[in-house]
């Protein structure tokens, strides 16, 4: 906890609640999308949604604690997410070339066989 931490003003608390709510909604959207869709690009976008929901929550908590660490985290997350997005999309392209489809079911034989 940093030395300049102070107690929160009432308006700040409302802003934070709103931000956390948005974050939770975004995460839920991403999760539901990931669980219901089979298109690998959509699934990938859903994971990105969940990712950004977490980033938003981090910024909100940073505000609560008057700590810049939250924002620093987000900068890092954005950087890593950019690299990871390039990698993931590249993988999706390769998977598509193998099966000529974007359906994730096409790869279900990668399961554990007993």
């Amino acid at each position, binding site marked *: 906890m940093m030395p300049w931490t102070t107690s929160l003003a009432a308006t700040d608390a409302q802003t934070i609640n709103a931000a956390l709510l948005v974050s939770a909604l975004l995460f839920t959207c991403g999760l539901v999308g990931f669980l219901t869709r*089979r298109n690998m690009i959509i699934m990938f976008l859903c994971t990105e949604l969940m990712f950004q929901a977490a980033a938003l929550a981090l910024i909100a908590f940073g505000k609560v604690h008057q700590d810049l660490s939250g924002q620093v985290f987000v900068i890092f997350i954005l950087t890593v997410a950019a690299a990871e997005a390039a990698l993931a999309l590249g993988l999706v392209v390769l998977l598509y070339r193998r099966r000529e489809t974007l359906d*994730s079911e096409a790869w*279900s034989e990668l*399961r*554990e066989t007993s």
Partner: protein
Amino acid sequence: MLDPASIQPAVVSIPAAIPSPEFAWAGLILLLPVLAAVLSTICGARGVKGKLPGAITSIALIASFVTTLMLFLRLPDDAPRTVHLFDWVAFAWSGTAPNTSFLAPFALYVDSLTLLWMLFVTGLGSLISIYATEYMEADVGKGYARFFASVAFFLFAMGALVMGGNLIVLYLGWEGVGLASYLLIGYFYTKPSAVAAAKKAFIMNRIGDLGLALGGFLIWTNYGTVEYDALFKAISSGAAPAANASAWGAWAIPYCLMLGAFGKSAQIPLFVWLPDAMEGPTPVSALIHAATMVTAGVYLIARMFPLFSLDPNALLVVACVGCLTAFVAATIGMAQYDIKRVMAYSTVSQLGYMFLGLGVGTTFGAVYHVFTHAFFKALLFLCCGAIMHGMAGQLDLRKLSGVRTVKGFGIISWTFFIGCLCLAGFPFTAGFFSKDTIIAQAFASGNPTFAWLGWVALFTAFLTAYYTFRVWFRVCAGPQKYEAGDEVHSHDDGAHDAHGHDDHGQAHGHAHGHAHGHAHGHAHSHAAAHAHSHDWHPHGPRWAINGVLLVICIGALLAAVPSYNGELQHKPNWVETMVAHSSAASGIPSHEHAAHGHEAGAAAHHALSFTGIEDVHTATSVVASAVGVLGICVALWFHLLNRTAADKLRAALLSNGLTRWLPLLLENKWYVDEIYHAVFRLPSWFLGHVLHFLDKQLIDGLLVNGGARVPVELGRLFQPLYNGALQGYAATMAGGIALIAAWVFWIWMHGG
């Protein structure tokens, strides 16, 4: 001086050693054999085909002997000398006095005892090495080099043992001779019995070596030094033991050293390895297992005699064990048919005499017996070896007769005869004088226990004379009749196989009674494939064997000369003088010390000459001569004049239920091997199998494999979840997180 009320016998102060760097060349005595060992090994590695390793070793050992002789002649007086060769082990720290340092330089301690030992070790070593150049010629090549490298290494180790200036160098030599002995017993390494014998010797010796090591440790904790000179100074000054030394530690020193000596010198209970050691080539039996290495135990006790003389009970134990060993080994020797084995048991028995001598307090007698025994026993073994060499490995005395008249075996037979006379204690031979000194001291000591031991020793002398001449009358005398052993090989063909050599005691069942020694049907002999093998004739030895036999025979006869001086010309026996000037004389009032008014315990000892109780000694000589001659006569009757009587007697004893045990007990070597088998080997075998079972089932089975099964089974349990549907995985994960979140929420609601 010492308190007369003290239970300690008087301790003769041992003169302090003079540091003598000018005698550093004495280190050559050790260096030359090392060089020979290295060069012989190189010869073996480079595949030299020839007698080069034998020549190198013989020359190096002769040079070593000459160096010893020079040292003996150049020493100006009898004072012990230390020669510091190089620093070896040197630690110092701030501890409790006197344990503030551990110093073991590679130094020599040269006194008359050392010289006496080194003279016969290097002298006999050289002679036996020359003998072996001819004896081992069937193995020329790698085996020949290996043999001589081991022999040279043995001479180095024995030198370090005898000449070392502290217990650490002695220990180095002690282990070194054990290693050389192991290598040479197992020389025929493709023969299972030789390998077993080598292992047996090594393991038995380890038991003894443990005693020596513990003894050394205790000496250091008690006296703060392992160097002889400092140790003797500490003992003779009567210095109090170290503060951190315990009473039992000081008490245990002689017993620990004794265990080491019993192991190396094949005494009860550690004697069973020596007869089996005869699996080695015969020159090795003569050098290591008769003349030199096995006397290391006697040397150890003689060297450490100041420590032993502090505890009369320790010497009593030494005397009893020695006497018992002498008797038991002699009885076994009576019933063996393998002539090398008879000689092996005779060695054990004679070593028993030496320990008896040490125990009853005549270190001179013990050392003199070592000295004379070294010559005549080496001679006897070399004769056995020469007969075996000429008779294709035949060692069974039932299958040899009248060898004396076979062409080329004359020198062997007559030198053998002289060796037998010495061993039997025939009057005025070397063995007679040395053995009598020991027996006389047992009677003269005034101790009733020792007198009993003396009677047993006298009876053993009778047995010795009997079994010795049993061999000679059977093998050398009588009608000429012999069978080849099972290693028939023709000498005009160079391609001998080494590994059938020296195979003895494996008498095959052919009883054709060959008049001319034709060997038939030795299918398992490699030489059987040779065209000449069906035309076998015994071959007499050439110059190397005959020459060495003659030289050692003369040595065995001359070994009695010191006694002629002592007994007949009233000059001091020079062996006795040498012993008297060494640490072995400590606590033994010899006439020299008596002349200096040394009266402590005068009633308990007997000065060997110039005293009024000389008749004890003379009486012993007369009785011992009588039993010796009686033994020879009994052997003459049973084994030359009336050979069937021996077999009839044996059959009669066996058929009578009351006396059956006697021949069976003796022929089966008192069942000692069987007892050891039952007492030590079987329980170890059983324990080993139990532990093996536990290891397999409990450690390997339950813990290791059982532990590995846990993750395997858990994985199998959850395996159906991995069905390949990506959404299923995600749902499981989300569900898990939801559960955790719900749990946290629940705690937050109720716990907060």
